[in-house]
């Protein structure tokens, strides 16, 4: 069977599985829809959380980014895992004890204020939508390369599947589908990683492989060889950093605190039966996530080494088949600057402008010709970072079924995250905005209908973002974390650990954190991108890391304002006392 057929088969089978689960686990109450009935086993929830968390960005892009920036890529590895420690120790058990349906629910009740609830809904919708657009785009990329359908068709098929299980099944459908999606995606990630690790180092465990000796008789370890090869080509060494320590610190912190403040992750801990289950469940979630996150840096180093070995100083006509495949998708381009028919790879941007624009002609060697002007550097290749994971099985010459598996895994990663995000968007609208604010008189049945409607509308908007991506989507996704760190995290943390924190403090803190971070990002990324260099940044902190400063501002303002204004009422003090002890937690209830 051809790779193409296998891919159709694998992706088709996985879709059939997801839809089957959706029909089997149809939601019949708001409790089913919002928190899967509240009786999910902690390990099952941990697995679902891992799939929810690991998006197209984790599966497709992360190893690729690390591959190109080396040690600086640690910010993603540390930031996106370390946040779970904060989540497990500081938030999840207490929010589970609180036992309602949504994150704005907690903020609204704890700060005894409809305004605080609405501010939280706004933060949540902003964070979640920027995030979901990237997922739909990931589905589109996988479809266009592996199934050779149009990106738009791919997005529509993806939307239809998410629609089926998110709208029908709500949290219940999503939870069990995510378990299946975790199994698909982790298997799809590990199989090629193990093969490539054996191929390069003879060590079947990728986590150990990238510290082992390369089996080419050089006696160098993978990282030593990579450092030497890259220095030779004019890059900086793979294991050395180039970002300043303060910036790495700020970016890592923004990603960590942002992770802990992400609503679609927090809400997963509302689905387990008990407080002690929520603690344990966070541990399982991170363990499942760590399998991929400790493999990713290994894949990153193997892929880079493999890439340099395969393409540098290779005549174009002898380039392997995958090179042409990805050239056809526009994610690789070659411009023969010195007319020798041989591909030279090195440091620096090869093309001007940097993204390739293809003419319809092919050159003397069969390569696709470009409209771009050559730059002064010797590098002749444009290589998109996103292809490193997707192309890796082909680069390593693995059989067709592995390639098909990676396609199914990429789709699983994107769909599972998209569904989780769509659910928190729809429940914050139907529950917080309608039931708790605008239409308090609606019955449970009506609320469930509104929740389904909101999910349907959110799926369509997300799909539109996928088909017509605003130019800034890719950049904005990383900022969702900074915004979550600067707005939601402090309000949640103070709500649990400080009895003095009151409504005035929380609202002013959230607004200042959100507005400060948002303005800084918009200023450097969109209003004055020419100034986006370290000398103009506040204390040398890039827009990616500014959420950390926004968060500190939020804390300072929330604490100061709370001290200067009146204490929270007695009923709120009792609520705080109550969430601090585990006993007496019932499954999430409706009030």
């Amino acid at each position, binding site marked *: 069977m051809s790779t193409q057929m296998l891919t159709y088969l694998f992706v088709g089978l996985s879709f059939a599985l997801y839809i089957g689960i959706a029909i089997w686990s149809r939601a019949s109450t708001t409790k089913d829809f919002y928190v899967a009935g509240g*009786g999910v086993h902690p390990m099952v929830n941990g697995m679902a959380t891992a799939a929810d968390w690991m998006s197209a960005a984790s599966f497709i892009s992360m190893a690729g980014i*690390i591959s190109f920036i080396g*040690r600086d*890529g*640690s910010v993603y*590895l*540390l930031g996106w*895992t*370390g946040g*779970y*420690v*904060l989540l*497990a*120790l*500081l938030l999840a*058990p207490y929010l589970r004890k609180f036992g309602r349906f949504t994150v704005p629910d907690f903020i609204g009740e704890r700060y005894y204020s409809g305004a605080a609830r609405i501010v939280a809904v706004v933060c949540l919708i902003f964070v979640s939508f920027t995030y979901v657009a990237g997922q739909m785009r990931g589905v589109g990329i996988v479809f266009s390369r592996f199934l050779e359908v149009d990106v738009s068709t791919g997005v529509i098929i993806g939307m239809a599947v998410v629609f089926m299980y998110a709208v029908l099944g709500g949290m219940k459908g999503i939870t069990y589908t995510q378990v299946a999606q975790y199994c698909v995606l982790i298997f799809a990630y590990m199989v090629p990683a193990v093969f490539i690790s054996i191929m390069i180092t003879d060590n079947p465990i990728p*986590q*150990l492989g*990238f*510290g*082992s*000796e390369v089996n080419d008789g050089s006696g160098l*370890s993978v*990282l030593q060889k990579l450092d030497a090869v890259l220095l030779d080509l004019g890059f900086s060494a793979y*294991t050395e*950093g180039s970002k300043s*320590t303060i910036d*790495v*610190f700020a970016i*890592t*912190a923004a990603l*960590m605190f942002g992770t802990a403040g992400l609503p679609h992750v927090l809400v997963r801990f509302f689905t387990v*039966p*008990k*407080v*002690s289950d929520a*603690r*344990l469940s*966070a*541990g399982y979630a*991170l*363990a499942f996530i*760590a399998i991929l*996150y*400790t493999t990713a*840096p290994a894949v990153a180093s193997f892929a880079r080494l493999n890439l340099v070995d395969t393409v540098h100083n290779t005549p174009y006509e002898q380039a392997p088949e995958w090179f042409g495949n990805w050239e056809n998708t526009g994610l690789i381009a070659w411009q023969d600057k010195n007319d020798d028919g041989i591909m030279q790879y090195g440091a620096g941007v090869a093309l001007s402008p940097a993204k390739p624009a293809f003419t319809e002609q092919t050159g003397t060697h069969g390569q696709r010709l470009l409209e771009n002007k050559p730059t002064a550097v010797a590098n002749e290749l444009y290589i998109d970072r996103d292809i490193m994971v997707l192309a890796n099985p082909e680069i390593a010459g693995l059989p067709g079924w592995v390639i098909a598996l990676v396609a199914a895994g990429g789709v699983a990663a994107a769909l599972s995250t998209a569904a989780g995000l769509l659910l928190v968007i729809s429940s914050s609208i139907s529950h917080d905005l309608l039931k708790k604010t605008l239409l308090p008189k609606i019955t449970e049945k009506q609320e469930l209908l509104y929740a389904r409607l909101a999910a349907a509308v959110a799926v369509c908007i997300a799909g539109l973002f996928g088909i017509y991506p605003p130019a800034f989507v890719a950049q904005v996704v990383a900022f969702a974390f900074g915004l979550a760190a600067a707005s939601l995290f402090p309000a949640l943390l103070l709500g649990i650990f400080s009895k003095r924190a009151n409504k005035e403090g929380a609202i002013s803190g959230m607004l200042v954190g959100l507005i400060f971070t948002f303005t800084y990002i918009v200023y450097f990324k969109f209003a004055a991108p020419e100034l986006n260099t370290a000398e103009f940044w506040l204390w040398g902190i890039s827009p990616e890391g500014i959420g950390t400063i926004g968060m500190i501002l939020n804390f300072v303002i929330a604490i100061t304002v709370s001290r200067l204004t009146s204490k929270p009422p007695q009923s709120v003090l009792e609520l705080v*006392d109550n969430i*601090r*002890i*585990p*006993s*007496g*937690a*019932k*499954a999430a209830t409706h009030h």
Partner: protein
Amino acid sequence: MSSNDNNNREYWKANLSLLAKLLTLWFIVSFGFGIIMVDWLDQFSLFGFKLGFWFAQQGAIYVFVALIFIYAWRMKALDRQFGVGDDEDQA
């Protein structure tokens, strides 16, 4: 003040002191070893890795997983000790 309030206050104090210890470890392995001290640690080597690089891309993640399970296990013990556990609650 009832003895119940007192008990809960002691439980909360014990919780906070456990949090402080675990979060200190969390900070040391990630921001400490993986970022601030990374260049200094790189002079040592572990399983063929520079040590600082290993913490930044592998080691810290393993410690994170361990920290959460240690927390879940220690808190369960505290819950029992102070009689505020959720064992009897219905699932």
